[in-house]
């Protein structure tokens, strides 16, 4: 796994984080349990990780979530910041396989992307987040696991639909178009 970290990655993290923070308030509420809503910013992060790799994905998740929380909600819920980075890192690890920039994001890659994102979200929200909640805040286990499961569901839905769509769209932009001909 080649992990390049040049200027492009620095800027990708910067602009990616800016997008992530700007989208913090753009939410599609899901239900009553706090801190859970469909978050388009998750789809964005999943997409960036899939294009730029684990470092960009992880740091956008970490900085974006911490900064977004701090600016909009005046608190930083570290137990939910770190899992965000986990999702970015795990999806990013497979960036080369998705070949989004080369226009190779087809059925096989879409399936792989979704398997990876479901696993990444499972690890992050069903394992890491609840454990951190228990360790840090001594919150009741059944509550944090329910919350985590809820976040897991919301995130796999939004990344699965919106994240996949963005990746397909961007892949088409980068793709070759040599076989085009004008029609009458």
């Amino acid at each position, binding site marked *: 796994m080649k992990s390049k970290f040049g200027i492009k990655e620095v800027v990708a993290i910067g602009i990616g984080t800016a997008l992530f923070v700007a989208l913090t308030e753009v939410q599609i509420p899901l239900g009553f349990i706090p801190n859970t809503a469909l978050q388009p910013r998750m789809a964005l992060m999943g997409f960036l990780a899939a294009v730029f790799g684990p470092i960009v994905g992880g740091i956008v998740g970490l900085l974006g979530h911490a900064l977004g929380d701090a600016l909009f909600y005046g608190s930083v819920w570290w137990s939910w910041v770190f899992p965000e980075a986990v999702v970015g890192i795990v999806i990013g690890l497979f960036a080369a396989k998705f070949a989004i920039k080369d226009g190779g994001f087809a059925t096989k890659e879409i399936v792989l992307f979704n398997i990876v994102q479901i696993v990444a979200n499972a690890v992050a929200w069903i394992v890491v987040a609840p454990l951190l909640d228990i360790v840090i805040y001594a919150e009741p286990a059944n509550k944090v696991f329910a919350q985590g499961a809820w976040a897991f569901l919301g995130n796999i839905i*939004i990344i699965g639909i919106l994240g996949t769509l963005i990746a397909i769209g961007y892949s088409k932009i980068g793709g070759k178009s040599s076989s085009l001909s004008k029609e009458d």
Partner: protein
Amino acid sequence: MSRVLSYEEKDTWIHRLSGVTKLIFFLLWSVTSMISYDTRVLLVMLVLSLVIFAMSKTKWQQVGTVFKFIMLFLCINLIAIFFFSPGQGTKIYGTETPLWHLFGHYTLTEEQLFYEFNVMLKYLTVIPAVFMFIVTTNPSEFAASMNKVGIHYNVGYSMAIALRYIPDVQDDFSKIKHAQEARGIEMSKKAPFVSRIKSMASIIFPLVFSSMDRIDVVSNAMELRGFGKHKKRTWYSARPFKRNDYLTLAFVILFVIAAFIITFRDGSRFYNPFV
């Protein structure tokens, strides 16, 4: 009242502190309040937070909206804890002192009340620290501060770029949203779920793709001006350390050590008044 927290220039000793000092203070303060469940420590922290907050001359208008939001969130969370686990307090403190039987197996106990009071304290002690950090630290100093506490300047500069482009991206977002609304795409809450995601896609697509172009422009501009040339870099807006910075750091480090000693002296992170 501002919807988002933002830096406001003022001249207090807190504003004059280096961003590094405030970042370290903020991080240590957060860690302490996360780990300690000692009511006495948390209460002292809360009082100190409020004192510092008052000294920063931060006005209610700067933080009011955000504060109300947190309070709402906190209440929901406290109620949720009770409904999920009314016996969590008993589990932690080992005793059961029922106060009021509600229904089914939901009984309000003194232990539960005390436990949730501590949860509340933990949140409340962090809020002024976050407010302070955001409202009194010039964003220009963020990157320099992160670099100084040992984070590579690449990441520090990513942060600077993020802060630089947040307003631009927000602006793009509302421009794109308006143009798409004019084409007939509605963000209405009444719309069915799938069409809401589709509408969202029609805004996010152009936003993300034009941002991808921007990544190229900005990285070219940075490269042309020598970014990444050396292993280190200096910062125009870094604030040099002064006496107050050392005093503040000394204070927070001593405080954290004391807090940890008090918290863990009896072998548990919980302060237990029930035994």
